[in-house]
């Protein structure tokens, strides 16, 4: 072994010689090391101080971003036009359609190196199913089902990162039913799936989705009317639960750790009027610099085929201002016995903080954020594996969850601030699992009254939702035994289980 290695060389050496990282994970980690060898981003000393204190966190985006963090290709356009760069003609048959998508997925960049959005896959494939028997591209329903099931297996085994997200709905389709059936059978963690849900979604389809989610923690339900009122119909749910424009995406996502900022003072006025405005100004400056680098210095849109072929468009991009730890920040300023999720006063302070945060973020303009009139979108970030005592976004801490109505009523008040993503997670016992309409009733009420996004799973499911992404408990056990696992998100999941008490999430029974 080489002596006197620099810290970076040491990290690279450890990556290369690891017996727990897969080959693919090593390649991706080495790329990150290479990127971090550069120091090309202008950063003020104030920003550095905030970063060192863990108050501003760049979520491992790297020192020289060379692609937008989240890319949301227009797959419908791709299905119609194929790709000149990939030498793909528009598909005529189900098999060609699936093949084309599988090829494109290999070439969609993102922060994870895997696509964080793979399309409204039911609508993409529906035109190729249910053809007349004399059509040369006819496939039987059973053959179509088998093809879709294999497509999903391919995704799970090759896009080995559970921030990969498929959308279905809002209308029920034959393909949508097949996807749900296949997911119930496969019980894989990838892809993450969201059902865009509104009054147009057939009740039968929604019930099928609830049943599926009890078994395998997906799909989540997105409030389609709420998202559509902000983005128009042309939006997608990507990565954990992020609402973004189709044909666009988000350049970056940094996060503000509110709880750590709060710890700097005991004076609420100082927090609200001095610290919050200052940290927002600094964080936006930091993100502005990242965006400048991607757009102006890397010139991403000038050379990437997705951009050249119109599958993404500079005009549809925005960026996300993330936050975590609202509950802990509120509790820091409240007297004992007035805890977030259990106290009107605490809730009122939470709302006050959000109003200020929203107003401060909206003060700034970045000309590259074309999709959102120059503004950053607020995002309730789900946390990272090393967070201890910091609740995701605006969530009530695990271990302190109130009865389900109080929990939902609380969430309803906070979800409006986050077009680019927020959500809550519920675990239900088997009595509830037998009554999927019960869950749907709660979703209907919650969505009517302002909740944006909801996820849930049964208490005996192997696939569970960690904070926004999915992991199999059996895979976490494997990793805990020191065995190699295929999917990189299992590592994050294990960290969250160890640090954020994910297994202790309240199990909701027939009446709580």
């Amino acid at each position, binding site marked *: 072994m080489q002596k006197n290695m620099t810290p970076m060389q040491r990290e690279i050496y450890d990556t290369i010689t690891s017996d727990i990282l897969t080959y693919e994970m090593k390649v991706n980690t080495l790329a990150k090391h290479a990127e971090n060898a550069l120091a090309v981003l202008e950063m003020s000393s104030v920003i550095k101080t905030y970063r060192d204190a863990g108050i501003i966190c760049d979520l491992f985006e790297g020192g020289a971003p060379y692609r937008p963090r989240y890319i949301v290709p227009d797959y419908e356009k791709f299905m119609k036009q194929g790709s000149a760069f990939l030498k793909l003609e528009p598909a005529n048959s189900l098999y060609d359609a699936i093949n084309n998508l599988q090829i494109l997925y290999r070439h969609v960049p993102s922060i994870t190196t895997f696509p964080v959005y793979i399309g409204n896959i039911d609508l993409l494939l529906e035109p190729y199913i249910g053809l007349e028997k004399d059509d040369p591209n006819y496939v039987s329903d059973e053959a179509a089902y088998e093809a879709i099931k294999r497509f999903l297996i391919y995704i799970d085994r090759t896009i080995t990162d559970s921030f990969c997200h498929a959308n279905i709905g809002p209308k029920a389709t034959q393909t949508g039913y097949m996807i749900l059936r296949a997911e119930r059978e496969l019980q894989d963690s990838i892809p993450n799936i969201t059902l865009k849900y509104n009054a147009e979604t057939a009740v039968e389809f929604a019930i099928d989705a609830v049943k599926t989610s009890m078994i395998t923690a997906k799909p989540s339900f997105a409030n389609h009317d709420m998202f559509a009122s902000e983005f128009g119909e042309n939006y997608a749910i990507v990565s954990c639960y992020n609402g973004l424009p189709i044909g666009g995406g988000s350049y970056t996502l940094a996060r503000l750790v509110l709880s750590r900022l709060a710890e700097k003072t005991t004076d609420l006025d100082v927090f609200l009027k001095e610290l919050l405005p200052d940290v927002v100004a600094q964080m936006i400056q930091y993100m502005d610099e990242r965006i400048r680098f991607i757009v102006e210095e890397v010139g991403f849109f000038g050379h990437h085929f997705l951009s050249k072929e119109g599958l993404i468009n500079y005009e549809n991009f925005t960026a996300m201002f993330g936050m975590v730890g609202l509950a802990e920040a509120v509790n820091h300023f409240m007297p004992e016995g007035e805890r977030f999720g259990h106290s009107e006063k605490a809730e009122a302070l939470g709302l006050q903080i959000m109003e200020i945060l929203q107003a401060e973020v909206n003060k700034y303009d970045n000309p590259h954020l074309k999709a959102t009139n120059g503004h950053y979108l607020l995002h309730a970030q789900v946390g990272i594996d090393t967070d201890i005592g910091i609740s995701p976004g605006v969530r009530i801490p695990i271990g302190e969850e109130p009865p389900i*109505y109080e929990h939902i009523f609380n969430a309803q008040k906070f979800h409006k601030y986050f077009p680019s993503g927020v959500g809550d997670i519920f675990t239900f016992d088997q009595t509830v699992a037998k009554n999927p*309409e019960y869950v749907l*009733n709660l979703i209907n*009420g*919650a969505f*009517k009254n302002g909740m944006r996004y909801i996820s849930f799973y049964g208490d005996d499911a192997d696939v569970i939702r960690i904070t926004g992404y999915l992991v199999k408990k059996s895979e976490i056990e494997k990793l805990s035994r020191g065995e190699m696992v295929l999917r990189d998100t299992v590592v994050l999941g294990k960290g969250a289980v160890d640090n954020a008490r994910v297994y202790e999430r309240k199990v909701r029974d*027939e*009446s709580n």
Partner: protein
Amino acid sequence: MIGYIRNMIKNSAVDGPGNRFVVFLQGCQFNCLYCHNPETIKSVKLLTAEEASEVHTYSPEALVDMILPFKDYISGVTFSGGECTLQMEFLIAVCRLLKAEGIHILIDTNGHMSLAHLKTLEAHVDGFMLDLKALDSKIHKTLTGLDNKRVLENFIYLNAISKLYEIRTVIIPEFVDDQALIDWLSAHEGCNLRYKLIAFRNHGVKGEGKKLKPPSTAYMRSIENYAIQKGFKNIVLI
């Protein structure tokens, strides 16, 4: 007008389809050996001061005001007890108000009300969940204190007007005449109903009921199979 309410559950997954707001009214004519809510049996008039302090009084309007904040989140309201139909006047007044709000209503009943009462109530609600505790009148009397003549008559009436959401029987081997009851239900066009077969559990049961024997899982399966043979299509084992 005042109603006597023992308890309310704002969200229940086990008292009808979907999510139900459940209101438990005080008082019951039956005194079942296996009653799991014995505190709800006593008539309001007979309660001691201490017991009465646990029973809440509501006007129909006040009760509906408790329910309305949850209207968006429920599939409807279920009235249970005790025996909710004992407070018929109050119950109908509440149902009228709920129906004006478009809320679905189910009545969880022991079926002992008179047919005339049932016909009055029926017009105000969407359906009934009826307990059929035994077929043999003597067994029924031993179990509940009263015979089942009205229960069986009311079953036939409610089934004829398609207002039975669910029927239920608590299974106690060597005590409840389960097979005979299933035969009777089958002969009276009950096979298309949702039939909940509940295994007797002595946990929480007091007095004589403690001596009753809970069924094994195998016994429950055998009764389920018997019901399937007799034509039942929608059986729920609990």
